[in-house]
C-alpha cells in the first residue's frame, strides 16, 4: 500500500533548521568549549604539578664527552639550529642548584645514548636551595660518627632525625617570633614611657629583667641553630659529586622510582597537604600558600560583611522609599555604571581615601605616639573596604530586583494587617527577597575573591610575615598587610626571579583560587537554597 501523502507542507526551513537558531547554538558551544578548555588546562596542569613523576637518568653524548644527567622531563620542543637543521629537544629539571647553577637543562634527543630509572635515586626537599636529586650515602653526626646508608635501620633513623629537626625549627620560630618579639615590644613601650614621663626605678628594673630574658633567649636560639647545623646528610649526585646537606634543613626524602601507583597517590596527597598548610619558601616558588589562602578568605568574608548591609540598605531606600523620578533613575544608572569602572580606579580611590585620609585621621587620633604608620598604610581592612565599594553595585542591583519580584499581594496583605510600611518591608518583603539578595552577595564574593589590581595598592604584598588574625593580642590585626592568591599568581608568574621553576606553582595556585571561589559560591548557594525552601514564595 502506498504511503498516504502528508497533508503538511514540508518547507526547506523546517528540514534544514533556522540559521539563526544554529548561530545561537554555535555561540553557546564556543563559550562552553572555551570555559571547559580553560578549566581543563588549569585542573590538569595544577594536579600535574603535584604528581610525583619518575626520576630518569640519561647518558648524553655531548661532542664526544659522555655526561650523565638525572631528573624529570619538563617539556619537549623542536628547535631549528642556525644551519637550518631541526632538533628535537627535551627540557630536564635536574635540581642540585649549587652543583650546576642552572636547575634546568635542554638536551638534544639525538644525543641521548641511554635512559634508565634506577630505584635508589632520592628526591630531597629542603628549606633553602631547591630540590636535590642523588643517591643518599650516609649521615655524618656532629661527634664524628657516621650512619652508613647501607645499615638496616638507616631510613628509620633518617626519618626520625628529620622529624626532630622539624620540632627544633618550631621551637626556634616560637622563640624568635613570639617570645623575642614580645620582649622587644615591651622594651619599646617602656622606652617610650621613659621618654615621655621620665624614668622611674620600676621601669629600669623591668628593662634590666627584659635584657636578661633576651640574653637567655638569644643563647637558646644560638644553641638550637647549632644543633640544626650539627649533622649532615651526605648525598652523591648522579655524576659522582658529593653534596653535604645539614639535616636541620631537610623537609622530606622520597624515592619516586621504588614506589608503585598507590605510593605515588600518597605522595601526591602529601604534597597537596603541605601546599595548603605550609608557608612559602624561596621567594614563593616553593613551599605552600597557606598565608595567601588565609588572606584571600578573610578578606572576602570581611568584604561581604561590609558590602551586604550597605548594599541592601541602599537598595531598600532606592526601591521602596525614594520617589521614582528622573533623580532616582539617574542614581540607578550611576550605580550600574559604577560596576563598569576599571577596578584599578577603585584601588587608587581606596589608597587616597581610606589609607591616606581615613587611615591618617585614625592614626592621628588613636596612635599619635607611633613612629610608623599603623592604619595609614595598606592593610586587610582597607583592602576589604575597597573591594566592598567595588562590589556594592552588584548587591544593590540584585537586591532591587529581588525586592521588585516580591508579589504585590504579599505587601498589601501585610499593610492590610495594620503593618506600617517599614514593618511590611522588614517582616515580610525582606524575608521573601532574601534568596535573591544572597544571589547578589554570592556574585559580589566571586568578583571580590578574584580581583587583584586594586589590592596591589591597598595592602596586598608578596610576602607577609604575620597573618591578619593570630594569637597575639588584640588577635585581629585589621591594619596588617596580607597575601592573596590572585596576587600570588601574578607575582609567581611574572615577577619571580626563576619563572621556569615557579610555573607548577602558578598552575597549582590558580587551581586553588578557582577551587576556593567555587567552594565559597557553593556554600552560599546551599545557604540560599535552604532559605528558599524556608521562605519559598507560592507560585505567582
Amino acid at each position, binding site marked *: 500500500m502506498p504511503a498516504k501523502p502528508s497533508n503538511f507542507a514540508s518547507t526547506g526551513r523546517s528540514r534544514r533548521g533556522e540559521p539563526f537558531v544554529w548561530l545561537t547554538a554555535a555561540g553557546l558551544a564556543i563559550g562552553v568549549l572555551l570555559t571547559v578548555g580553560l578549566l581543563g588546562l588549569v585542573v590538569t596542569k595544577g594536579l600535574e604539578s603535584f604528581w610525583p613523576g619518575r626520576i630518569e637518568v640519561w647518558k648524553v653524548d655531548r661532542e664526544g664527552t659522555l655526561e650523565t644527567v638525572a631528573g624529570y622531563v619538563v617539556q619537549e620542543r623542536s628547535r631549528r639550529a642556525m644551519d637550518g637543521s631541526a632538533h628535537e629537544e627535551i627540557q630536564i629539571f635536574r635540581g642540585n642548584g649549587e652543583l650546576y647553577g642552572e636547575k634546568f637543562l635542554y638536551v638534544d634527543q639525538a644525543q641521548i645514548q641511554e635512559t634508565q630509572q634506577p630505584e635508589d635515586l632520592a628526591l630531597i626537599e629542603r628549606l633553602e636551595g631547591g630540590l636535590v636529586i642523588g643517591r643518599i650515602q650516609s649521615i655524618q653526626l656532629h661527634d664524628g660518627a657516621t650512619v652508613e646508608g647501607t645499615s638496616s635501620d638507616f631510613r628509620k633513623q633518617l626519618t626520625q632525625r628529620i622529624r626532630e629537626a622539624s620540632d627544633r625549627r618550631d621551637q626556634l620560630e616560637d622563640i624568635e617570633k613570639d617570645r623575642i618579639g614580645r620582649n622587644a615590644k615591651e622594651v619599646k613601650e617602656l622606652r617610650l614611657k621613659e621618654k615621655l614621663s621620665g624614668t622611674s626605678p620600676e621601669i629600669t628594673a623591668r628593662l634590666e629583667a627584659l635584657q636578661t630574658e633576651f640574653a637567655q633567649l638569644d643563647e637558646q636560639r644560638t644553641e638550637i641553630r647549632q644543633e640544626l647545623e650539627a649533622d649532615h646528610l651526605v648525598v652523591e649526585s648522579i655524576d659522582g659529586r658529593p653534596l653535604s646537606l645539614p639535616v636541620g634543613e631537610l623537609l622530606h626524602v622520597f624515592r619516586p622510582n621504588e614506589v608503585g601507583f598507590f605510593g605515588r597517590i600518597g605522595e601526591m596527597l602529601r604534597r597537596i597537604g603541605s601546599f595548603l598548610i605550609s608557608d612559602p619558601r624561596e621567594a614563593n616558588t616553593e613551599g605552600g600558600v597557606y598565608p595567601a589562602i588565609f588572606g584571600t578568605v578573610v578578606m572576602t568574608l570581611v568584604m561581604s560583611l561590609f558590602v551586604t548591609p550597605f548594599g541592601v540598605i541602599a537598595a531598600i531606600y532606592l526601591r521602596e522609599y525614594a520617589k521614582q523620578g528622573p533623580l532616582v533613575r539617574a542614581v540607578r544608572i550611576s550605580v550600574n555604571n559604577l560596576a563598569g569602572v576599571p577596578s584599578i580606579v577603585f584601588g587608587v580611590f581606596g589608597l587616597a581615601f581610606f589609607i591616606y585620609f581615613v587611615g591618617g585621621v585614625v592614626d592621628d587620633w588613636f596612635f599619635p605616639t607611633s613612629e610608623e604608620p599603623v592604619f595609614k598604610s595598606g592593610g586587610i581592612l582597607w583592602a576589604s573596604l575597597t573591594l566592598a565599594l567595588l562590589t556594592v553595585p552588584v548587591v544593590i542591583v540584585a537586591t532591587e530586583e529581588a525586592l521588585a519580584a516580591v508579589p504585590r499581594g504579599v505587601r498589601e496583605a501585610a*499593610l492590610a494587617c495594620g503593618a506600617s510600611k517599614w514593618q511590611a518591608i522588614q517582616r*515580610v518583603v525582606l524575608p521573601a527577597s532574601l534568596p535573591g539578595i544572597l544571589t547578589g552577595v554570592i556574585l559580589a564574593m566571586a568578583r571580590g575573591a578574584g580581583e587583584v589590581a586594586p589590592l596591589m595598592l591597598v595592602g596586598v604584598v608578596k610576602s607577609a610575615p604575620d597573618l591578619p588574625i593570630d594569637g597575639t593580642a588584640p588577635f585581629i590585626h585589621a591594619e596588617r598587610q596580607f597575601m592573596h592568591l590572585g596576587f600570588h599568581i601574578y607575582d609567581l608568574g611574572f615577577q619571580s626571579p626563576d619563572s621556569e621553576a615557579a610555573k607548577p606553582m602558578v598552575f597549582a595556585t590558580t587551581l586553588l583560587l578557582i577551587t576556593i571561589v567555587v567552594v565559597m559560591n557553593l556554600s552560599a548557594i546551599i545557604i540560599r537554597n535552604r532559605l528558599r525552601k524556608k521562605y519559598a514564595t507560592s507560585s505567582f
Partner: protein
Amino acid sequence: MPREDFIAVDHFSFFYGPKQALYGIDMRIPERQVTALIGPSGCGKSTLLRNMNRMNDLIDGVRHQGDIRLNGNSLYDPKVEVISLRKRVGMVFQKYNPFAKSIYENVVFSLRVAGRNRKKELDEVVERSLRSAALWDEVKDRLHDSAFGLSGGQQQRLCIARAIANQPEILLMDEPCAALDPTATLKIEALIRELKEQFTIVIVTHNMEQATRCSDRTAFLYMGRLIEYGPTLEVFENPKQEETEAYISGRFS
C-alpha cells in the same frame, strides 16, 4: 441592635489620575450581614472595596470626593491614622497570599506589628482565629510548619484567619474564591455564613451563585455607578433596573 448604616458611603467618587472610577456612590451597609458587590470587570467594585480600608492610598495620583464612614467616623478625617483604621478592617485578597512564615506567625502577624508579643495571648488568638476559619483541626499539629505547605483552599482560610486575628469589625473580601477549586469554594462560603455572626462582611464576587448563596444584600455596579442595591433575593429575582437584569441573566459580563 445592629446598625443599619454601619458603613455609610456618601456620594463617593474616586479618580485614578484623570480617569474617574466611581461616580457618586451612596450606600448603607448594615452591621453583621454579608453584602456582595457584583458587576462586570472594571465596574469599580474592587475600587470601592479597597477604599473601605484605604488600600488605594498606595497608588500614586489618586483622589476622591465624598466620604465613607465606619460606624459614624469618617475614614478620610485627617486625624485618622491609616494603620489603626486597617486594624479595624481586615482584608482577604483574590489570590491567597500567606507570608513566607509559619502558620502560627501568619496568624499572629497583625498582633506582632501592633507590638503584642505575649505568648499566652498569641496562643489563644491562634487557636480562636484558626477555629473561626475552620482550619484548626487540619493544622493544629503543624502550626510551626511553613504556610506554603498547605493546599490553596487551606492557604485562603489561613489568610481569613490572619485577617480576623486582631478582631476587626469589618472583613473585606476581594473575590476570595477566584483562585480556588469548587470544593474549597464551598468551604469558604460556609465559613462566610458563619463569620457574619461576628463581622460585617463586604465581598466582591464575579460569581452570581456565590452572591445568592452567601450574601444578605447585593449591590450591582456598572461603569462606576451603583445601579441597584437591595436584599439579595430581590435583586436577583426581581431586578428593578434593566442593566441588572441583563447582567444577572448573563447577557453581558
